[in-house]
């Protein structure tokens, strides 16, 4: 059973502020969803994790690598990207003090 405290802890981990008044409802909903998805535990057969050799379309997971080359010209996108940041200073995105 998921408690209000569990939800509070998960919300903290996910960096989301949740009103106290919402905690109980959310705990009930998450609990009911987990109850439903828990049915997968009844599926028998341990197939192990998909391995790279199983390839595309077969459920395999593979890394796709590329050479680190042809970088953008410095500053090519700076103006547009900075325009979307909430706070900037001298061509940088400004971050809050953490110390």
């Amino acid at each position, binding site marked *: 059973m998921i408690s209000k405290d569990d939800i509070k802890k998960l919300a903290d981990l*996910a*960096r989301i502020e949740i009103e106290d008044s919402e905690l109980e409802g959310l705990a009930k909903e998450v609990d009911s969803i987990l109850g439903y998805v828990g049915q997968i535990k009844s599926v028998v057969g341990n197939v192990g994790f998909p391995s790279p050799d199983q390839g595309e379309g*077969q*459920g395999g997971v593979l890394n796709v690598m590329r050479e680190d080359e042809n970088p953008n010209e410095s500053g090519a996108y700076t103006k547009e990207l900075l325009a*979307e940041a909430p706070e900037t200073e001298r061509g940088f995105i400004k971050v809050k003090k953490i110390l």
Partner: protein
Amino acid sequence: MNLSELTIKKARELLDSKQLSAIDLAKYYLKNIEEKNKDLNVYLEVFSDVIKQAEDAQKIINKGEAKELTGIPLAIKDNILIKGRKVSAASKILENYTATYDATVIKKLKEEGAVFLGRTNMDEFAMGGSTENSAFGVTKNPYDLERVAGGSSGGSAVAVAADIAMASLGSDTGGSVREPASFCGVLGLKPTYGSVSRYGLMAMGSSLDVIGPIAKTISDTEIIFNAIKGVDKMDSTSIEMESRILNPESRTIGVPYHLMNQEGISLDVKKNFEESVEKLKNLGFEIINISLPNIDKSLAVYYIIMPAEVSSNMARYDGVKYGLREDGDPSTPLGAGNLLDVYKKTRGKGFGKEVRRRIILGTYVLSTGYYDAYYGKALQVRRIIKDEFAQAFKKVDAILTPTTPSPAFKIGEKSDPLEMYLADIFTVTANIVGCPAISLPSGFAEIDGKKLPLGIQLTVPHMDEDILFNIGKKFLNE
């Protein structure tokens, strides 16, 4: 000229033979938008330069250099980036965000000379099946304004159904193109995973997401799919489609009848499905009863893998790089500048209820102690379901189910999130296994004196979209 019956194919002929100008075509849709958008809430924004875009398209046509989509007015879901235009994913956290680059699909459509009418409403960050989770109001179903359009690509489906765009783009993570298409009586294609680049599509479930077209006919669906597909160096999961020679004998369709006995499938859907099966038999298809023993676990697998990926993908919205920023609590020791507080308040205020719920669920299934039981197990069951599909496709060319367990439901009817999730029961499987699937209009249910559209769904092996188009054309007599 009656433009309401117009398809992309027909419009192409009229535009190229100069019987219709791209400008008049754009004006037709702008007029329809003016008349209908207020009631239906389809467009979050109608672009101010539609006529200018149409004029540019007309110049290309006049030079005799028109491509398939030159001058064709399209609606674009609000989670696909068009450089210099606002794009919000129907979320408060991105309400004032302007795209800094073009999505690959947009780049391709611009090269075609397509005209973008505007950005369409959706469930916030594509999380939902009704557009009720939009931060900017629900989209109404044109067949009954008291009912939902479906979702998450509800705006894109209604745009086509209500004739306020010729076709549109949506995105499909668990049925978000097919379900609204079915609720609105139009066609919706979820292509093979990786066939269409995800670059510039706001990520939801990265192993599930794919962009797909919504249109009035199979030919139109095919035209848009061919225009947007292709390998892309900006998306490492994109693939080149192998060109396949269609098996002319591809005439067997499997039906997992055991799925039809589940709870919650409406009688209207069952009846219409049987009629559709009969119709396919009469068209010469062989219908085979198949068994997919673990397909009924697809929804459970989906609601573990998807929130896990959501919780990772949503981490980027932090109030620092772009989007909404809420200041911290000034009464705390670090004051308004407390970074942790900025994160929590920005995300708490900026995300709607369903997005927050899925992030929390995803955080849970990925956390130490629960990872193996939920996420790890879900990956294994995903493999098992994929294998079952591969086995089934040795016997049949396509798999047929209804698209949804019921026609469009009433706005506000499904208040419990789990109940809402069950509407995805038939659609999530194609995303779990990565196969292409299409929803085709198959008739109507009559409820409270209103005709509500129903749809059937065909699923085929990876990269076999041509089989979908082939069967679809026969079924729709196209």
